[in-house]
């Protein structure tokens, strides 16, 4: 995708935090992240559990849980800053211009309403589509996510569907309002392995047909290689490295990215699987300096005391590590 593309989403210096115990405890779930996404592009958001991936997704929708709050930063989406629009306008943007696919297909659908009803809702509320046209639209959407005999299945209820089918229906819901961006928060984590690949292929086909941009959250780097144009690796609420998929895989700059790639299981490899030592840090009590230093094999005195800056490389790759500072100096 080298053609003249327009930037759809630009997140700048975004900070979000959760407060608990009457403000006594502050968790900085998103700690100054920057990224941008072009139209039709797919970005993978990678990282361990609790590193802020899901919070980032919800922040884009401006729908954090009650204890959470976006502190500062801007989210430019389709030419307007989402931090400046009114609540009512933001509600219209959700579902109409951006759709979300959640992790658990078994829990994502309301058990008391038909598939038809739930798939139709965004089109009905945001696009004002009614009656027969609406029914046709639902049938088209269900057909596009490959639900067999959609005219019959749309009158059924979620409990009559398998997990894979439900997740495809959630996909249809996310497309229902005709969005420009879809955020998929680990959409295949709760699916059978055999269904996972099917679902990923479906998402990619849908993206090619509709030209939506996709943010794909996962902790599976294999999926990223298959699905994405670019990757952002998150650690402790920060993006520690980002760049094109090719650069990140062939030339990972950050030790965390290197460790992640090393820990992908490979077929035929008899060596024990590499694991990153230690646990992801507690976001309420972050280590000093670089948050990754306690687990980093290359950590130096400097890493413990000073936070590394972002270092850009010529090809759009960006890394937040003291080693990268050296790399950049040496060319």
């Amino acid at each position, binding site marked *: 995708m080298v053609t003249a593309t327009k930037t759809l989403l630009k997140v700048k210096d975004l900070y979000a935090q959760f407060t608990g115990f009457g403000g006594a405890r502050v968790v900085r779930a998103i700690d100054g992240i920057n990224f941008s996404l072009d139209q039709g592009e797919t970005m993978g958001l990678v990282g361990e559990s609790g590193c802020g991936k899901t919070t980032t997704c919800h922040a884009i*929708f401006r*729908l954090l849980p*009650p204890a959470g709050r976006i502190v500062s930063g801007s989210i430019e989406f389709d030419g307007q800053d989402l931090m400046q629009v009114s609540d009512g306008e933001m*509600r*219209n*943007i*959700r*579902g*109409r211009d951006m*759709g*979300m696919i*959640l992790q*658990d297909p078994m*829990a*994502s*659908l*309301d*058990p*008391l*309403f038909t598939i038809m009803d739930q798939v139709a*809702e*965004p089109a009905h*509320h*945001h696009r004002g589509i009614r009656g027969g046209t609406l029914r046709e639209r639902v049938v088209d959407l269900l057909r596009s996510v490959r639900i067999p005999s959609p005219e019959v299945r749309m009158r059924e*209820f979620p*409990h*009559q569907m398998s997990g894979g089918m439900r997740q495809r229906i*959630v996909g249809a*819901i996310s497309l*229902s*309002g005709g969005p420009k961006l879809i955020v998929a928060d680990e959409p295949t984590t709760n699916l059978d392995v055999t269904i996972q690949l099917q679902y990923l292929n479906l998402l990619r086909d849908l993206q090619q047909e509709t030209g939506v941009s996709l943010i794909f959250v996962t902790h599976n780097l294999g999926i990223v290689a298959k699905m994405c144009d670019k990757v952002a690796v998150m650690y402790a609420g920060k993006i520690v490295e980002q760049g094109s998929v090719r650069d990140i895989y062939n030339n990972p700059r950050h030790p965390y990215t290197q460790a992640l790639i090393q820990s992908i299981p490979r077929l035929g490899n008899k060596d024990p699987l590499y694991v990153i030592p230690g646990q992801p840090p507690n976001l309420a009590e972050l280590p000093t300096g670089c948050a990754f230093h306690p687990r980093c094999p290359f950590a130096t005195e400097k890493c413990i005391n000073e936070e590394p800056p972002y270092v850009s490389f010529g090809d759009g790759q960006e890394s937040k590590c003291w080693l990268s500072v050296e790399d950049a100096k040496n060319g």
Partner: protein
Amino acid sequence: MKTFIAKRLLSSLVTLLVLSMIIFALVRASGNPAELLYEYPGAREEDIARQTAAWGLDKSWPEQYVSFVWNIARFDYGQSFQYGTSVRSLYFDRLPNSLLLAFWAFLISMVIGIPLGIMSAVKVDSWWDSVGKTFALLGLSVPSFFVALLLVLLFGVKLEWLPFLGKAEGFFDWQHLILPSLALGWFFSGAMLRLTRSSMLEVLGSEYIKLCRLKGLPETVVIVKHALKNSFIPVLTLAAVNLVVMINVAVVVEVVFSWPGIGRLLYDGLINRDFPLVQGVVVMAGVMIVGTNFVVDVLYGYLDPRIRLTR
């Protein structure tokens, strides 16, 4: 659906049989009613024995139980010991009064409990929620006789706005109804509020509500269409059981306000060891509860497609 109904009917019958055994044994544990005759001067040993035999209490328990159940099966609850008339006619004489009181109390409990419960859940941890929680706590922990007496004291004695004893002639006697239905509805509104709140909270925290919000649905649609319908099943069950309880065992409130309902009938029966009366009222209450649960179970089917289709 047919097997479902058959199964439910069978389990209902078993429930009622167990209930009849328990109440049969319990009333007899209170002692021989004929011995109450000792209170009369000049009552002799043989008078007591004669009265015991006349009520059929000299037979063995199994014999008494079999005839009790056999009579129930023919809708005959026997003769009241104290009134000498049939328990069935006593019960049905009082039933309209109890229905009237229960209906208004039920309405009050729903009108207060459900909206407040919804507000508490939607605006959780806010000022609304504090009001709701306080109300629920008071409703559940302040005994209804205390509330009843306070109401009598305030509106009946001090302000003299409303009558508080008995019931006037005529079906639409609203003045005598207000205080007892408030006192009775008070307790149940607390329970309704708490259940509505917790049920709503659980649903509001679910993934599908999250997805509804991510779809950009207006908040009223999220709450009224999706959350309310999902949280209604437990509330419906409680409401149905509450209604039966209010009809049959509003003992305290009916006694305080001298309301001529079934609760007071039951109280009279208990005080005077009137076995057939107590047994009859309790079995009727059991039949109503079992029957209501049966109806509610069928209603679930309309509310929840998962239940409808597995039958």
